[in-house]
């Protein structure tokens, strides 16, 4: 509401646009989803945590102390500095430093950025793949459907983490060494994304098969619009509810998968650690008392995944009209 108010004060913008945005905003704030949001304290907290973490990682270059991914900034002698509140802490390293002298606070920001990027991108990838295939399978049916679903069966008959391992291994082998670090992130995105598309495809296919028989789709067919138009403009918006829920959960799973893969040694390069890689490196120092190297990234990861999961939970309930 405040956002809208500010826009109005700002003036000079197309009034029609403002009123329309206001209208949409008002409708949203008035809607049941928003209401159920305001009713759940834990969801609000989760949303705030998510916004802070996502915001912080987007703004990482501006709010970090240094760029930990640039080796020029690192000084090995700064390594293992404890958090600032402990005896040997230094203000240059508010949360302490890691084994290479990276400021942990900055590294967590950059690491979250990477983790979130991998998470979002892989979800976007599996979502677009899964939603398109699900729509096609559900709407066209027949042998197209059978084929897509058999592929999905095969895919689901095999643990996601092993699929990710396979793709990762293949990509590493096929790609020339130099381009490794740059493309590794994308390989991970592909690997994690591929292991998740089936969830989307199955859900979308199921809903599409329900929607396909609804009369508004038949009405569109009677009008004579094309199949693509029906799939994209009519059916898709109506099957996106559950997709959104799966997407949130998938995001959490993707971020954790990246961490698990890094434990198995196929994550991002350690010079540009993600949260998962940071934890993997940091757990080496759990016994030696340099707990902050694993605890802070661990807490960040847990907070992020937890918040996203809670949001997903809430979304699931909020979007389910029966449970309202």
């Amino acid at each position, binding site marked *: 509401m405040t956002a809208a108010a500010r826009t109005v004060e700002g003036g000079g913008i197309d009034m029609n646009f403002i009123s329309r945005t206001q209208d949409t905003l008002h409708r949203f704030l008035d809607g049941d989803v928003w209401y159920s949001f305001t009713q759940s304290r834990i969801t609000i907290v989760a949303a705030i945590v998510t916004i802070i973490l996502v915001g912080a990682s987007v703004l990482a270059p501006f709010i970090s102390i240094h760029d930990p991914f640039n080796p020029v900034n690192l000084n090995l002698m700064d390594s293992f500095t404890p958090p600032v509140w402990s005896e040997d802490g230094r203000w240059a390293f508010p949360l302490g430093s890691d084994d290479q002298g990276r400021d942990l606070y900055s590294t967590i920001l950059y690491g979250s950025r990477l983790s979130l990027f991998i998470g979002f991108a892989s979800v976007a990838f599996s979502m677009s793949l899964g939603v398109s295939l699900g729509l096609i399978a559900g709407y066209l049916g027949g042998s197209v459907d059978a084929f897509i679903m058999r592929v999905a069966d095969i895919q*689901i008959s095999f643990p996601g983490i092993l699929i990710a391992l396979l793709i990762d291994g293949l990509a590493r082998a096929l790609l020339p060494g130099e381009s490794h670090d740059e493309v590794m992130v994308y390989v991970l995105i592909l690997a994690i994304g591929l292991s998740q598309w089936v969830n989307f495809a199955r859900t979308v296919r199921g809903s599409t098969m329900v929607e396909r028989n609804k009369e508004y789709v038949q009405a569109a067919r009677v009008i004579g619009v094309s199949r693509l138009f029906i799939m994209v403009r009519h059916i898709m918006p109506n099957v996106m509810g559950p997709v959104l829920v799966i997407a949130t959960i998938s995001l959490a799973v993707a971020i954790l998968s990246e961490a698990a893969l890094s434990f*198995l040694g196929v994550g991002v390069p350690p010079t540009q650690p993600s949260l998962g890689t940071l934890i993997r490196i940091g757990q080496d120092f759990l016994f030696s008392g340099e707990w902050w190297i694993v605890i802070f990234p661990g807490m960040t990861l847990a907070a992020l995944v937890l918040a996203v*999961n809670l949001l997903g939970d809430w979304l699931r309930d909020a979007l389910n009209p029966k449970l309202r």
Partner: protein
Amino acid sequence: MIALIIRRSYQSVVVMLVVALLAFTMFRYVGDPVSMMVGQDTSLEQREAMRVSLGLKDPVPVQFARFVMNTAQGEFGISYQLGRPVAEILSERVPATLELSLVAALFAMLVGIPMGVYTALHPQKWLSKAFLTISLVGISLPTFLIGILLILFFGVLLNWLPTFGRGEVVMLGGWSTGFLSGSGVKSLLMPAFTLGMFQLTLIMRLVRSEMMEVLLTDYIKFARARGLSNKAVNFGHALKNTLVPVITITGLQIGNIVAFATITESVFQWPGVGLMFIQAIGLVDIPIMSAYLVLVALFFVIINLIVDILYHVVDPRLRVDGSGAHG
């Protein structure tokens, strides 16, 4: 039912072939097995000779055909590293993984289902909310970290539980079991918890949401209107109907437990196939890696089949007996 089994089997064959192809393709690239098999003094010529004798120099289709043929006969070859038939090593290692997975799955189900039911029946109680949130915390940390923290706490600080391995095992025929000794059971606790935690959360949430849906159905309302006791309604009617979808997902999850056991096993040095797989990756022991992947795929396939059959047993609508329909 027979048709179902046949269809499943034929799908399974396709699955297995694809898995074999994937595994096979990947292993061409994971590294050089020969350099892992010899010390650094071995000459390049000797290395080359080994590649030839391992068949690594044959044309790829020939290698694949050989791989599939051998695999179909349960013949996975001789481990490059251990120098023993892979099938034999697998059969030694499988009990450990199966016992761990079984306990983890039981833990996940026996705790997850009641928790799910409770949270569905009493959505507003604080205990439900606590269950939901705490279980989420458990899955918000990477498994390996949970495992290490458990080791640190229960193993090192409190010294209550063994930090690694299976403890004392007893051989029953060809099966080594840790269930029969105190140390075996103690050793199971932390790994099973670590492994089961994630699935527990999933199952609990699944049961909860399915059950909440079921509780809103007309037949539950009608069951209440018939004056049935709460117990009969919630457990006799609601839970049974909830279990139908839960079975499918849980089945897949059990498959995932076996897959995720790799991480847990390597954290706890649990001598199962997952640990063997991780070690094999490091050492590029291709026969072991392929055998493992094929084994996991087989596992999934079998579980899927069982799930399908269960599904048919539980849900009478899927039983095609034709009698009396459309009276």
